[in-house]
């Protein structure tokens, strides 16, 4: 037997998923015009949206993850890197199970470009990919090893 509440939540979560994946559809454009470009982000901040103009449907969608705190949608969705221009190197989960800024906090603190995208950072040379990091200072030898 299915739990009707869970069915409801999963079906509504599909809207969030469609917001992430379906680019250029009319209803998404409408939502983006009404609530700003942030609607297509993983973590939608409902604080920026004036509740007086938001429809009940949208408010329900925002409260899907229980309101406040860590949304489960963020922790469940993984980025698949295409050209890498939409994937944040440090802050999206794309390489491993954890975001890189949590995995290597020390390197993250040293990097000068914290919002860099995967596509901007990587340089295709020959067959492999090289990463062109910019650091605040030259790394110590032991830090280089962790790369």
């Amino acid at each position, binding site marked *: *037997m*299915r*739990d*009707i*509440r*869970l*069915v*409801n939540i999963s*079906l*509504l979560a*599909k809207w969030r998923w469609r917001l992430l994946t379906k680019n250029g559809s*009319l209803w998404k*454009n*409408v939502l983006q*015009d*009404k609530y700003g470009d942030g609607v297509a982000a993983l973590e939608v901040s409902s604080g920026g949206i004036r509740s007086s103009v938001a429809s*009940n*449907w949208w408010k*329900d*969608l925002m*409260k*899907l993850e229980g309101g406040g705190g860590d949304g489960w949608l963020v922790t469940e969705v993984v980025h698949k890197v295409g050209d890498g221009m939409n994937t944040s190197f440090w802050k999206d989960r794309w390489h491993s199970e954890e975001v890189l800024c949590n995995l290597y906090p020390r390197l993250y603190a040293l990097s000068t470009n914290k919002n860099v995208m995967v596509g901007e950072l990587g340089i295709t040379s020959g067959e492999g990919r090289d990463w062109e990091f910019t650091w605040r200072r030259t790394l110590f030898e032991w830090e280089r090893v962790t790369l």
Partner: protein
Amino acid sequence: MAEGFSGLMRNAVDRNIFKGFEVKRGGVTLSHLQYADDTLCIGKASVENLWTLKAILRGFELVSGLKVNFHKSCLIGVNVPPDFMERACSFLNCRQGSVPFMYLGLLVGDNPRRVETWEPLVDHLRRRLFSWGNRYISLGGRIVLLNLVLNSIPIFYLSLMKMPAKVVKLIVSLQRNFLWGGVMGGRRRLCWVKWSKVCQPRLKGGL
């Protein structure tokens, strides 16, 4: 056919004789929505728009040979003075609609947080379950019926609207009563297994 109408509308919008609904200044403009045989025209409430709309509909009739059924059509005003609406309706020859209206099988503009909104759904489920035909179904049969019928009826509603906790409770109690008591109902039956256990996957002991 629908494509033809769509083209007419788009042309009218491009020529600026029909003003659609702008979500934000300079943003996406909506003028019409079509799905199968349902058409929804959206625009600013102005005399010019009404003239254009009438001309487009008439032109479409002449070109396609189809006729618009004005008895099935209605005009709905959002923040429009009532006297304007009245004149507009007599001009277009159609009924005046009010805001919760049926579109693609769902009520548009209805508040999903009110329990009354969900009444038709609950009634539908109740009719399906507690009908005469289901009187002599065994427990196993009832499980199959619940799984197949009950889980598919509400899906369309659930894919758009968040169900209030009260309605969830109501439907779960319907399901539970039917599972353990059958159609006869009346006196309370014992529920041998708690509902959260019933909802588990079958491998984990659910039904």
